């Protein structure tokens, strides 16, 4: 069309081993391996498959919530209300089950509650775009938990575990592998493929990088945000079902701190809270790093507070990684 200079542009990416090694995920894989070696060498009980899967099951409810949280962070948003949402959804499951004696109704109500809570967040944030997601979800978190407290008062609700198959959702296994682990893996694959291989995923990246440019490229920014917040709500409800299967009894203080835990997992996985950056693989590895590190340190009976310090230090050390890497790169470039 225009006066051609005859310049050609390469469309195949050069892949160098060095670039691969300098990726965030490589660091995570290294840490993951290190954590496992460490755990296995310091505790003879670590590599017992049955117990290992028991412990994995223990953090998978949080892990499930970390999946849509990755989307939320990718969009440059944040959701501090997931803990409250899980709590309220689980409460509704228990209450409806006890009122109707029908577990299916309970599950349906639980999922509906999760969706409603997520949609509420989404609605407020997309109708009032000038509001910071942090403050809105902070308030709705208090609201959701508060509603659960209103419903339950000083009591609790439960009895779902008496249904054998329901209890098996959490406790059931194929060989040593829990059903829930399989469910989680399927979810992780789906979430990962959507994030990296589909139009929707690419659009989320675009929104996280630059909302205005995304809108000008014809992406329905607010629709996608609304959908992702609602999806997060749905996954909260979904996770709440497994959570109920695990606990069998719900009080208004369950699932406390799930929000920051899920965010920590994503952040360690390289999904920046500033939006638009990170890969799903990173988040998945990070879920297992945090979970297994906790388990390993628990097996050698470190106190909870020491484990907390180790995890905080790990998080800080890893997020400092890019700065250190650039520092080294620059020094080399100057030479």
């Amino acid at each position: 069309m225009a006066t051609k200079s005859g310049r050609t542009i390469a469309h195949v990416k050069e892949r160098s081993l060095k670039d691969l090694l300098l990726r965030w995920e490589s660091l995570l894989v290294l840490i993951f391996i290190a954590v496992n070696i460490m755990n296995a060498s310091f505790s003879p009980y670590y590599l017992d498959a049955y117990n290992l899967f028991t412990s994995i099951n223990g953090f998978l409810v949080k892990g499930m919530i970390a999946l849509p949280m990755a989307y939320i962070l990718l969009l440059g948003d944040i959701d501090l209300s997931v803990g409250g949402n899980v709590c309220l959804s689980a409460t509704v499951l228990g209450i409806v089950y006890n009122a109707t004696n029908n577990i299916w109704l309970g599950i349906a109500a639980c999922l509906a509650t999760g969706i409603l809570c997520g949609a509420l967040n989404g609605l407020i944030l997309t109708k009032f775009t000038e509001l910071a997601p942090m403050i809105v979800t902070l308030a709705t978190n208090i609201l959701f938990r508060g509603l659960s407290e209103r419903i339950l008062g000083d009591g609790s609700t439960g009895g779902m575990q008496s249904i054998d198959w329901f209890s098996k959702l959490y406790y059931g296994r194929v060989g040593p592998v829990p059903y829930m682990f399989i469910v989680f893996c399927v979810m992780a694959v789906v979430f990962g493929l959507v994030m990296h291989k589909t139009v929707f995923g690419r659009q989320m990246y675009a929104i996280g990088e630059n909302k205005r440019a995304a809108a000008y490229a014809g992406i329905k920014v607010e629709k996608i945000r609304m959908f992702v917040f609602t999806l997060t709500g749905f996954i909260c409800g979904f996770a709440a079902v497994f959570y109920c299967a695990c606990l069998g009894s719900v009080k208004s203080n369950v699932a406390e701190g799930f929000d920051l835990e899920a965010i920590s997992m994503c952040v360690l996985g390289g999904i920046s809270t500033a939006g638009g950056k990170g890969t799903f693989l990173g988040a998945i590895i990070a879920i297992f790093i945090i979970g297994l590190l906790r388990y390993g340190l628990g097996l050698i009976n470190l106190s909870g507070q020491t484990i907390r310090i180790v995890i905080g230090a790990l998080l800080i050390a890893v997020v400092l990684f890019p700065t250190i890497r650039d520092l080294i790169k620059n020094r080399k470039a100057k030479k």
Partner: protein
Amino acid sequence: MKNKLLQKNSKLSELFRSREASLLLVMILLCALIQWRSNGAFLSNIVITQLTQNYAYTAVLAFGMLLVLLIGGIDISIGAILALSGMTGSLLMRDGFLPNATSVYAVSIAVGLLCGLVIGLIVAKGKVIPIIATLGMQYIFRGLTYAISDTKWVSSDQMLASYKNFAQGSFLGINNLFWIVIIVFIAMIVFLRWTSFGRQIYAAGSNPEAVKISGINLDRVKIIVYSINGAIAGLAGAMYTSMYATAQGNMASGAEMDVIAACVIGGVSLNGGQGTPLGVLLGAITIAIISKSLSLVGIDAFWQQALKGGIILLAVLVNVLVQRRNNRKALEGREI
């Protein structure tokens, strides 16, 4: 010329339209409602004294958070810093290293300052996003609090009488803790309005890119701001332990959320560059009134949390709607 006249005239109306004014209005309405519902018990000398004493530390924390939010940062570790510094001061006092109340306060502030400095360095030099840096440090500070205290408490009888009495004492009829709030408030006004460093903080939040080429050392601003915020959290730690005459590992966990809510209600923007100490003071008082009065007006204990969340949400939404209305009015007034 026309422009100038317009501006002069609108000074007064601008005052009425400011966020502070609308917040004040909401506060007055809220107080009136509570006064009515509590059969006149709310606006009594005693309740106001209790309010100022019990929420003094939250207000002080909010001023520190104001600085951080002004430069476009955030600090969700202040609850943990409060605990660590308050615990350190109390432990040293218990073991007899500190002779008087002043030294306990000094130690707590120093510990807080140190914590803040670490965060500042990570954010400024390590180029880590503030929310992530403080999320990680929060785990560390809280963990350290348990570790140094061996998960034990420091109890009332292990504390100096002068330390405990300070929090209960008053001067000119105003509780000592609230005096601290007043002093920090005035110091903030002077600092932010009348010192060149204070103005640099506003500049840094208003346009961080511009700051880099205007001769202001952005990293230095960040480090100092986080350090001041840490020191203030340390001060709040001492206030907390002297007020409640006990130091516990889990104290003030989740305080950061109330503090951020207070700032946002007070008109501080999470994007930086906007917010005033007066707004923050009003925001902190609003949050205190909500927390304090819900049970006072006889609202069922199980409703309180849900209501608190609802009210915070409502306050934020109303603020946006008022702001939108103002903008629309301004646009409609424009001549085309």
